[in-house]
């Protein structure tokens, strides 16, 4: 009987000690913020366009960390969905956007028509539009994320979204057809 009692007491003591250590660790090594949300945020394209329904990439990252779907980011497209699926170990879903994946765009202000109302400047999430009241505005192309947010507030509709075309500098090689994936005539030639 005493043996059982000793065993129970020993286990109880062990439990208490372990519990105390865990409790201390939980307080002492508390992680500030949500590390998962940070990792998700790093994968998002940071266009801050709000097309996911959240006011910026970070809120969407936090929402994903909280269990929202991963397929709401049109600028990121399939690549981002795949990266998020890999990170969170969930099934990749097709992009949830009406127009599907869009190419990289950049805003362009038709400067002759700009009336200098500064509305687009206030709308731009990354301060990529330069101008002042009653002065012509222009887009700093290198800073524009192509988020579309400046188009709607413009009272004279002088902002166009232009596709960022491939130039000689930005052109890149395509991956060749994987070995073994031969069309019929090639097979004959090989054989």
């Amino acid at each position, binding site marked *: 009987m005493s043996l059982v009692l000793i065993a129970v007491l020993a286990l109880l003591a062990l439990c208490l000690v372990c519990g105390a250590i865990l409790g201390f660790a939980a307080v002492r090594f508390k992680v500030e913020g949500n590390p998962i949300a940070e990792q998700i945020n790093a994968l998002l394209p940071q266009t801050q366009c709000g097309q996911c329904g959240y006011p910026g990439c970070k809120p969407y990252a936090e929402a994903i960390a909280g269990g929202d779907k991963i397929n709401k980011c049109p600028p990121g497209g399939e690549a981002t969905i795949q990266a998020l699926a890999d990170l969170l170990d969930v099934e990749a879903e097709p992009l949830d956007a009406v127009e599907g994946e869009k190419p990289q765009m950049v805003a362009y202000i038709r400067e002759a028509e700009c009336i200098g109302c500064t509305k687009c400047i206030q709308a731009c999430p990354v301060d990529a539009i330069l101008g002042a009241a009653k002065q012509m505005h222009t887009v700093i192309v290198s800073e524009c994320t192509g988020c579309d947010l400046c188009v709607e507030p413009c009272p004279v509709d002088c902002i166009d979204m232009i596709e960022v075309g491939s130039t*000689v500098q930005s052109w890149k*090689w395509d991956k*060749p057809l994987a070995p073994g994936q031969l069309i019929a005539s090639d097979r004959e030639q*090989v054989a």
Partner: protein
Amino acid sequence: MSAMSKNDMDAARASRADVMKIWDIPGGIHPAERKELSNRTPIQPAPLPKRLVLPLNQHIGAPAEPLVAVGERVLKGQLIAAANGFVSVPVHAPTSGTVSFIGPRPYPHVSGMLAPAIVIDSDGLEQWCPLTPCPDYRQLEHSSLLQLIRQAGISGLGGAGFPTAVKLNARPTQKIHTLVINGTECEPYITADDLLMRERASELISGIDVLVQLIQPDQVLIGVEDNKPQAIAALQAALRERSYQLRVFPTKYPSGGEKQLIQILTGVEVPSGGLPADIGILCQNVGTCVAIHDAVILGKPLISRITSLTGEALARPMNVEALLGTPVGELLEFAGLDRSRLNRLIMGGPMMGFTLPDFDVPLIKTSNCLLAATAAELPPPPPAMPCIRCGECAEACPASLLPQQLHFFAIGQEHEQLKAHNLFDCIECGACAYVCPSSIPLVQYYRAAKGEIRDLEQKQLKAEQSKQRFELRQERLRRAEEQKEAERQARAERAARAKAAQTQAPAAASGDAPTTKPAGLSDQQKKLKIEASMAQVALKKAEKQLAAHATPELQAQVDELRSAAAAAQQALDTAMAANPPAPAATPAADDGALKKAKIDAAMLRAQLRKLEKLEAPSAEQQGELQQLRSQLQAAEKLLASLEAQVPAAPTKAADAQAVDPLKKAKIELAMQRAELKKAEKAGSDEATLSRLREALAQAELALHRAEEASNKPAPELLRNDKKPIDETTRALKTEAAFARADLRKLERDENAAAEALEQARSRLTEAERQLTQHQSP
């Protein structure tokens, strides 16, 4: 004697060549050289084309900025596009002519895309712009010599096209101890550098002199493969007494790669991801050296280059010195192109070159070869088969990479693994693909993977930048909001404080009011006293007006007022006599009593003074004067007794407070008047009204007292009627005024009927009669 010494020198040079150690590079291949096709004829000048196309980006870096406009005439050698930024190179007109177009034009690139260019229609005059040769460059400063090279638009002519001036602008922390001159030209078919070394050896050595002057290296190594004996001989002859070391090594592809050549000549490997400058070595192509010679010694910018025209589809393969911007089609025609035999047109060599989309693309600074190959010569690559993991590629790789692993990682898009396996050290020489038994286009995999990784890194960078900008913006907006909020609060606080001060002032005034009330007086007495003072004040004011504007009406009014005041005073006196006020003897009341006494005395004094000022006082005024004097004496006596009771009376404070009570009293009066008016309008009962009237009268009295006490001149107010007007009087007066107005109007109107005039007159008389009748009792 001279022959002897020459022999001695040769022997010395040979012995030195013996001790000159040559290292080997890993891997490498030995493809068919095919250099004999084009190296048998001397360099020919290419015919002047009718139209030259000069892309703005013939180098690595930012495209140049055009300086000319369409229709502008340019001279040979004139600067037509300036360098745009540090890593950029200017462009010069290769011949004289007219600028006919600036915009997208065919460009020698594997994508076949157009690129911005300046098109010049040549006029055939070949008219040079003024040149500034600088043969005594040794006198120049380092920076101005570098500037000469930069201005001449020189970029690496070996193939990569990196701006030479940028490469020469060595970091001050890293001393360049070895200058390597690359005359290797290891790729099959190409013989441009071979012919250049043969025919322009002296210019080449002179260009090296400039470089030596510029970077002051400890040693200069000229590397040439042993398949160019004529070039070696020419260089040896041109070197003469110079200490530059000509090093000849066995032919192997790709020993002409910058890093490979450095390893062959010095045995030192350029660290992974690093530059030759990191180990104190600088490498320049022989063509670049000649261009530097032309730029510095002759003052000529880079407007032409030597290019191999080769391949079996050409009838006369050769090397030409062609102007930059010459369409390749014209050059190939010059070399006798047989279009029916042409299968692939390649710019560059068969290993690293790329297929040109058409014949319109121009020759640019990096174009060292045009290979017009027949189908038999360069058959299309057989279809790729799966990798059999033979490992041939790893043995061929000059950079000691694992091409097979990289290939699999590239298929799987394992970017981390690719980077870990040093994909970016791959020089894309094509040796691995050349030896691959499965004909896998390995280099294309690496190029695609590199592009993908660079693209992702670019995106990552941009995302990071956008994020930072977004966060900074959010922070800025938050700060602005906070500041606005703080300002709003401060404003609200200020407003609240002002309001509190305002409410405090009337409160103080109302708090003061009781103290101004004569203590110990009964209500009846108070009322009488107020009435008496009111009458006095009204009288005084009327008198003042009388003095200013002496009219019979005013005189009558004054008399009336005087009698009213006397009556009021009398009533008060009798009331006071019947029930004398309790003496303000309590110490608490001292202060107030003293003040009151002082005020009374002051008031009396002022009244007295005013009366004394009157020039011709009437009998009543004389009496009043007497009365006032006696009152003043009594008041002064009282004051003296009170002051005796309160020895340390704050006499000074009275002065300071004098102004403030005036304001308070005025406010009080206005408030009372407003209250009374409101009550009148609301139709309150008589009791309330009379109470309010009394309060108003008291306030008025207080104001008058304050006015007197403050020693300020009384407001110069013109009062026409002291008596309150009752409703009937007002109505009658109005009627009379209307009637008068009507009459005047009719009188002015000449056409007015006499009847109407008469009627108006009678109306006016009636109204006036009624008014006098009403006022008379």
